[in-house]
Every structure is written in C-alpha cells, then in structure tokens.
C-alpha cells in the first residue's frame, strides 16, 4: 500500500466526505464556468445592441423626392444591399411603428439568418412586417432605405446620409462592461474561497491519517505533495462535469430570460458558443493550484508573523491600506489592487471578528446553556470561515450588481428622456435656412399651448481656463425653454436656465468639469469664430454619451459667422399639428423630403437595447449567490455532522429533539445572518467604489449612486433561508445514530 492509496483509503471508509468534496469542487467549477459564459454572453448582447443603434448610412434621392418602393427595387436590382424601413404613425396613435422586410435584411449579415438585422431581431414592438405597416391608416409615414456597410457606389440620382436610431450610447456600454469585469474578478475570488474551503475540509477530515503517516516516518512534505496529487485527480474528475453543468446552468438562465422577453424568440440570438470551456478549465486548474500552494507558503508566513495576536492587526492594516488606496488611487490597476487588499483584509478579519463576538457572548451569559450556545457559535464561525466569507462576498456582490444595474437603467432612461424630451426631431437639410423655420415657429408656436420647440446648433470652438487653449464641442439651443429646463443638473447656481437664456453664462458637461476640475462660478474664456467671450460656468450637466468635453450656450450667443456642423429642430406639437408644421417647413425650405424622427420610438428601441444585458448580469449574480449558499450548506452539513455526537449528548441529557432543533436553528440563523449583515456595508462600499471611483477614473464621469434598503431586507431574508436549510439538514442527521468522536478519532468534532 503506497502513501497515496493510504491517503485515499480515508474516502473508502467515508464516501460521503469524498462526495461532498467532489460536489463542492464541481460547484465551484460550475460557478466560474457559468459566470464566464454569462459574462461573455452579456458582452456579446451589449455589442449587438450597440450595433443596432450605431450610426449607419441611408440612401436619399438627390432630387429630394420621397423614396418609394420603386427606388428600393431599382437599388436592389443594381446589386446594392438596401433594406426598407417604413416609419408609420398610425392615425389616432402617439407611437410610431417600424415596418421592415426580413427577406431584404438577409444581405445585411450574410447567409443563414432571417429576421435579424446585423444580429438584432426585428421582431416585437415597434417592428412590424412592412406590408402590415403599409396597410395601417397612417397619419404620417416615411420610407427610409438603409444601406449595408461597404456597399458600392450609388447611382447618380442617389446620395447617402447618416441614419441613427438613437443617440450614441458609447461609453455607457463600455462602462458597464468594465464593471462587469470587476465583478467577474470578484467571482473568481469567491470561487477561490470555495475551493480553499474544500481543500481545508479535506485536510481537517484526515488529521489523524496524517498523524499516523508522520509516525510511520513519512515526511510532511511528501504528504502535502500527495495531497496535491490527490486534489489534481479530484479536479480531473470534477472539472469536465463542472464545466458542463456551468454551461447548462448559464443556458437555462439565458433561456428562461429569452422566454420571458417578448421578441427574443430567435434562439440563435442566444446560441451557446462551443468554445467557452477552454478558459474556465484553464482558470480553474490554475486557481486550484494556487489554493493548494498557499499551504506551502503558509509555514513561512506563520514564521514571519508569530502569535495569533499579530494576525488581526495585519488584517486590519491590510484593510486600512486598501481603503487608503481606494481613496487615493489615480490609475485603474491601482484601484483594483487596493480593492483586492480591502477584500482580503475583510475576509481575514470577518471570522476573527465573529469569534471575538462569540467570546464576548460567552462571557456575558450567566446561564450555562447560553454559554454553550455562544461557544458553539464561535466554533461554527471559525470552522465555516471560508464558505462564510464566500457567502458574504456573494451577498455583497449581489447587492452591488443590483444597485449598479438599477442605476444604469435609471440613468440611461433619464438621460435619454432628457436628450429626447421633444416628441420628434427634424434635421435641417443641407442648404436650408434654419432662420426661416425659427421665425415661422416663433410666430406660430408662441406658447406651450400651440407646441414646444427649440433649435439645436452644433459646432466647435476653443476655450481657455487657467492657461492652455483647448478645443471643445459647442451645443447651442434657442430658445432655452421647457424642453431643456427639465434636465437634471449635477451642480448649479441659482436660476441657471434663465441666466443661460439671457446669455449670461454657459453650462459644461460632466466630462469637461471632471477633466479640468471645473466648478460652478469658474470663469471660462470661450472663442467662437474668433470672437472671445468670458463667461461663468452656470451648471454642470450629466452626459454619458461621449468622451468629449462640451459647452452648452444660448443660441443668440453664437456669432453670426459661426460655422455650424449640424442643425436640427426639436418639436413637441400641441394644438398646431405636426403636419401643419412640417407642411409649412417644406414650403419654406422648398425641400419635399424632411427627415423627421420619432423620439418615443427611438427611446423604446434604446431601452430594449440594454434590457438583455442587464438580465444576463442579474443571472450571473443569482448563480453566484446560489452556489455560495449551496457550498455553505454542504460545508455546514459536513462540519455539523462531525459534532453530531455532542448534539446527541444534549438528548441524552434530557433535551427534547424539538429543543435541540431550536438551538441548532438559532445557531445556523445567527451564522448566516452575521454573514449577511456584514455583507451589507461591504456591498454598499463596493457599489460606491464601482460608481464613484472606477467609473470616473475610466471614463471621466460618474453615475448617481443609489441604495435600495428593501433589497437589503430581501437579502437578509435569503440569508435566514439558507440558515434554516442548514438546520433542517441537521435535524435529519439528529435522527441517525451518532458515532462517538473517539471511534472516528476525528479531532474536528472536539474543537472548542
């Protein structure tokens, strides 16, 4: 019999311990595989969504006439890949629908896919088959022809123009992905904790076997080597099913959401990529090695830090250093390192803290029964330290993700609402005189009763603050009215909109303010068309779309010879109908084809864009939490089983089974509830770091931070549920004959 088989023989005698070990390892693998899979799916989904809203090209007639089906046929028969896009405002409705031809969309992504448009399904609101859209009684309708990227030259009667479904979401998506990355790193940490707890469990279960081997003269080094080998064997067995289960779980989660979500019927949208196994397999193997190798380094650490009193101090130092780092870091990687330090320190401190609490409890209780209970609580916290920390981190992560996702959803929604506050917007055609339109609108829409409107002009300029001159985007609005004044501002003087309207200052976007450390009241020198004006900053407004700095000014502050790059009108018609307005403008400009876009339809579309990404992100956290809970359940069960004798002793001493169960329940609830309670501040802190530190460092703007106490209560309830499950498992155990510790020889059960 070799040392290896001698070690393994333990599991022949206790197959359930071996099984629990294997299950935990399998779960940890499944967790990370699932997360990896979901993260990449969320990433893909975001990419697809962004592709849908990115700017494309449309075809217009050079003579300005409206496009018809004949134009479509002519272009297709030339071999050009164009797709019809018929926007219809049905009579008596306020929302537009979009008629599309899925057959014509085939050439947008090559072969093998129908009813998608660059990977985005063209099904569900606001999309209809173009024949159905054309058959509607339409108050308004306009045909667009969208041109696939890279298509050859157009016939001379046509020209291209940009076609955008919504404002560019640009960095909002990137920011979300960065946060997702930060969270997957956290999941890796949680997985590591679970694996480490498995490893330690396997050690503690066999302390006697090791002692025996040592007595037989086998060196500790050799035992550890064999343990590592054993762990690798176990990994080899559990890795593949773990990866498979992880992928299956992820698919189920995705599939569930896909079913829930109207309009995502095309399963190819969520097709499971076959190549997601390599990364998880590699990462898990490395993680496992790291988890085992920690032990080889531990003796050194123990030598360097004698005495258990120094360890909490070291952990506290770690947390403090990490916190300082989080506060002061000026680079993303430093921030991540600092965050890791904080988490490591907290993970180290938490069991110690609970242990101290237990000690205090023992001292404070006069009754021996309670002294016993507090002491057991301490043992439980120490023995389950790693899975408890994993649960704590998982709960914290769920909390952070929940806050993050809601924040992103709200922010995105509000920001779109601001940017698209008017019902429709109308691009000013090349060569048309916008002043004519502005005059007409001033005359015919004098108050909100007739309708709201403003004129948007964009261009660029230069400005100076303190020393250097910089280029900046200029965003001018005339008149500054109710379509603007509803914007949320991050910082403002009193009556900022009135001052802006009178030309007494400018507003700057958050990016610019962050980059130059501008605040309200600072004076900027702004050069527009060689004309220098010195203006105070009236307010800072949130702007998630672009990295560029931008200043908002009143239209009348623009010099007459200012060079515009873009002009449009935003309109919310009331008593004067949209037809009247567009009719008048067509006549004024002599331009029969006006590009009019329905902002509500755009908003619908844009909101849909992020929905699936958020769903997948939530799925990821649910998976983490579920598996952390199962791990704790298993560990709790294995550990409590070793103490079964002592719980049975209570029965011998005359406690009823119900009384014992109550004690156990209280113990389990206290343990999980402590983890949850400690997770709350960690989760809020994590959210804060994501929102206020990582995002500004990466992108120059921050999201508003919100907390959701109702969700905290839900998490606490969940923790109680996990505790209840552990207690129920133990009740089953209580009904079975207990083995006296001296027979198993397990030291674990006698721990105090």
């Amino acid at each position, binding site marked *: 019999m070799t040392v290896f088989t001698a070690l393994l023989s333990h599991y022949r005698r206790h197959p359930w311990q071996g099984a629990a070990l294997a299950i935990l390892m399998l779960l940890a693998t499944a967790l990370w595989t699932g997360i990896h899979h979901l993260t990449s799916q969320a990433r893909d989904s975001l990419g697809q969504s962004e592709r849908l809203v990115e700017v494309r090209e449309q075809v217009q007639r050079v003579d300005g006439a409206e496009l018809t089906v004949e134009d479509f046929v002519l272009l297709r028969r030339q071999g050009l890949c164009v797709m019809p896009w018929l926007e219809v405002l049905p009579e008596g409705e306020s929302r537009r629908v979009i008629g599309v031809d899925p057959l014509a969309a085939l050439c947008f992504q090559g072969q093998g896919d129908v009813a998608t448009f660059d990977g985005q399904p063209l099904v569900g609101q606001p999309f209809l088959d173009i024949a159905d859209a054309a058959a509607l009684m339409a108050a308004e309708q306009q045909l667009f022809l969208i041109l696939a990227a890279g298509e050859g030259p157009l016939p001379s009667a046509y020209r291209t123009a940009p076609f955008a479904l919504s404002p560019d979401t640009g960095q909002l998506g990137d920011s979300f992905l960065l946060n997702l990355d930060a969270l997957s790193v956290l999941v890796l940490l949680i997985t590591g904790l679970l694996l480490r707890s498995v490893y330690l469990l396997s050690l503690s279960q066999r302390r006697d076997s090791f002692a025996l081997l040592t007595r037989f003269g086998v060196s500790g080094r050799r035992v550890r080597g064999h343990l590592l080998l054993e762990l690798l064997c176990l990994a080899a067995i559990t890795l593949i099913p773990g990866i498979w289960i992880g992928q299956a779980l992820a698919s189920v989660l995705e599939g569930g959401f896909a079913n829930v979500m109207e309009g995502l019927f095309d399963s190819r949208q969520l097709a499971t990529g076959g190549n997601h196994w390599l990364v998880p397999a590699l990462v898990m193997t490395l993680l496992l090695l790291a988890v085992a190798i920690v032990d080889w380094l531990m003796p050194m650490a123990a030598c360097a830090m004698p005495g258990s009193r120094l360890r909490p101090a070291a952990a506290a130092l770690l947390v403090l250093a990490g916190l300082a780092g989080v506060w002061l870091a000026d680079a993303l990687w430093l921030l991540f390192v600092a965050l890791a330090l904080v988490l490591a320190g907290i993970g180290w401190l938490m069991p110690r803290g609970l242990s101290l609490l237990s000690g205090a409890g023992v001292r404070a209780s006069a009754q*021996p029964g309670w002294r016993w209970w507090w002491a057991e609580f301490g043992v439980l916290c120490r023995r389950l330290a790693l899975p408890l920390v994993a649960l704590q981190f998982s709960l914290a992560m769920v909390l952070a993700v929940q806050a993050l996702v809601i924040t992103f959803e709200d922010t995105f929604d509000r920001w779109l609402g601001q940017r698209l506050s008017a019902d429709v917007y109308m691009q000013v055609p090349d060569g048309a005189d916008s002043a004519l339109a502005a005059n007409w609108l001033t005359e015919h829409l004098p108050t909100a009763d007739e309708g709201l409107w403003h004129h948007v002009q964009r261009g660029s300029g230069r400005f100076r603050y303190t020393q250097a001159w910089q280029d900046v985007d200029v965003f001018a609005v005339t008149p500054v009215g109710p379509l603007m004044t509803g914007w949320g501002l991050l910082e403002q003087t009193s009556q900022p909109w009135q001052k802006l309207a009178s030309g007494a200052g400018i507003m700057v976007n958050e990016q610019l303010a962050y980059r130059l450390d501008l605040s309200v009241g600072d004076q900027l020198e702004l050069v527009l068309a060689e004309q220098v004006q010195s203006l105070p900053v009236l307010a800072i407004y949130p702007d998630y779309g672009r990295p560029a700095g931008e200043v908002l000014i009143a239209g009348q502050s623009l010099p007459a010879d200012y060079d515009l790059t873009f002009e449009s009108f935003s309109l919310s018609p009331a008593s004067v109908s949209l037809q009247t307005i567009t009719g008048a403008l067509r006549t004024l400009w002599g331009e029969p084809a006006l590009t009019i876009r329905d902002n509500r339809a755009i908003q619908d579309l844009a909101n849909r864009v992020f929905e699936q990404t958020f769903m997948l992100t939530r799925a990821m956290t649910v998976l983490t939490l579920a598996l952390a809970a199962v791990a704790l359940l298993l560990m709790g069960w294995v550990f409590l089983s070793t103490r079964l004798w002592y719980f049975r002793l209570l029965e011998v001493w005359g406690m009823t089974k119900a009384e014992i169960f109550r004690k156990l329940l209280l113990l389990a609830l206290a343990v999980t509830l402590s983890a949850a309670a400690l997770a709350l501040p960690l989760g809020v802190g994590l959210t804060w770091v994501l929102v206020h530190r990582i995002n500004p460092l990466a992108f120059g703007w921050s999201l508003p931070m919100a907390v959701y106490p109702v969700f905290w209560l839900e998490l606490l309830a969940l923790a109680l549920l996990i505790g209840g499950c552990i207690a129920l498992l133990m009740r089953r155990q209580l009904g079975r004959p207990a083995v006296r510790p001296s027979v198993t020889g397990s030291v674990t059960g006698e721990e105090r």
Partner: protein
Amino acid sequence: MTGSAVTVSGLGKTFGRGPAAVSVLSGLSFDLPAGQSLALMGRSGSGKSTLLNILCGLEQADAGTVMLLGENDSTADWPCLRRERIGVVFQEANLMPTLSLLDNVRFRASLAGQPETRCQHWLEVLGIGDLGHRFPDQVSGGQRQRAALAMVFAMAPDLILADEPTGSLDRHTANDVADALFRLQGETGCSLILATHDPELAARCQQTLDLGHRSGG
C-alpha cells in the same frame, strides 16, 4: 427509595430484517432493587449498549416491558426522566468541548433543575476541584471521566447508567474512577447499571447479568 428501581421482563431487540436479522436481546428479564448495582457483562455486540439505550429511552425494545423508577416504558416522559433522574456516563466524550469542566457540570445541573452552587463541590468531591476552569482537551482522560461523574452526581440521579466508564483508562486511574463511582453511589443511594468487560469491576456490583450467554449470536 424502596422497591425496584428497574424491572425488565421478556425484553427483545432485533436489528435488521429477514435472514440478515441479528437479535441482540431475546427474552431478557431481571429486577434491580432500588439503591443496588448491576453489572452487565458480555462480549462486544452482545447488546450491553443497546440495553442501556433502551433503559434511558433512546431506543425502543421490540418485545417485553420495562418498569423504571416507577414508570412504565410506554407511558414514561423519557426526556424528563433523563433530564432529572437518569444519569448516563459513556466511555468517553461525556463533556461539551466548548465548555470548561465547571461549566459542563453547571450545564448538566441546570438542566436537571439542581442548584448550580453545588457544582464546584462535586468537582472537589471527585478530586478535581482546582481544574474547574479548564477545558476538556486541557485535562487527562481520567480527569475527564471524573468530571463526567461530577456532572452525573450534580443532577442527583435516581439511576446511573454507565457504559464502560473506565474502558479507556489505565488500570490505576480506572480503579480510582471506579472507587469514586461506587463510593458516591453508596452515599447517594442511587441505583447503578454498569456495562463492562472487566470481571473485577463487575464483581464490585451486587448483581451480575451476563448477556453473552443469553445472546442468540
């Protein structure tokens, strides 16, 4: 107390079913007058521990009746009996590892409704009065068994069931612990049923019951 502490008649217990069934007790009958002691002898597996478990209500017999401390086994409130009147001592692991020796005794006494003030006294009676603040893993096996006896006597039992209480101790220590057990049993007047392999220990009891001869195999 006068009369019988324990009366057992026609007791039977079988584990398993069918051809694999093992009957450990069959038609066992005996009577233990109050205040007397009985030694249970027999090979391992002869049913000594099973009988003790039946006598404290942790297991149920398949046949026969038990009258114990004036109560019928089918109507007895077993948890109450164990809490207040029956003290059980095992070979090992009689103490909660998380409590000091004194706290263990106090825990046991408080369950039995006995005053905690006498607990230190019992430790002293058993010769470990200065070890009360120590935890079970900080004292020797003999000292742990003395503490176990202190716990049992601190509850002022009417019946003590002891399952090889000295089985894991060396001869000298075992004798000391056995001396203490029999001395205190005599002083308090409680009854004692003692399962043991040791003929010398068995000889110190007033009655001896050898299950080894009675067992069907």
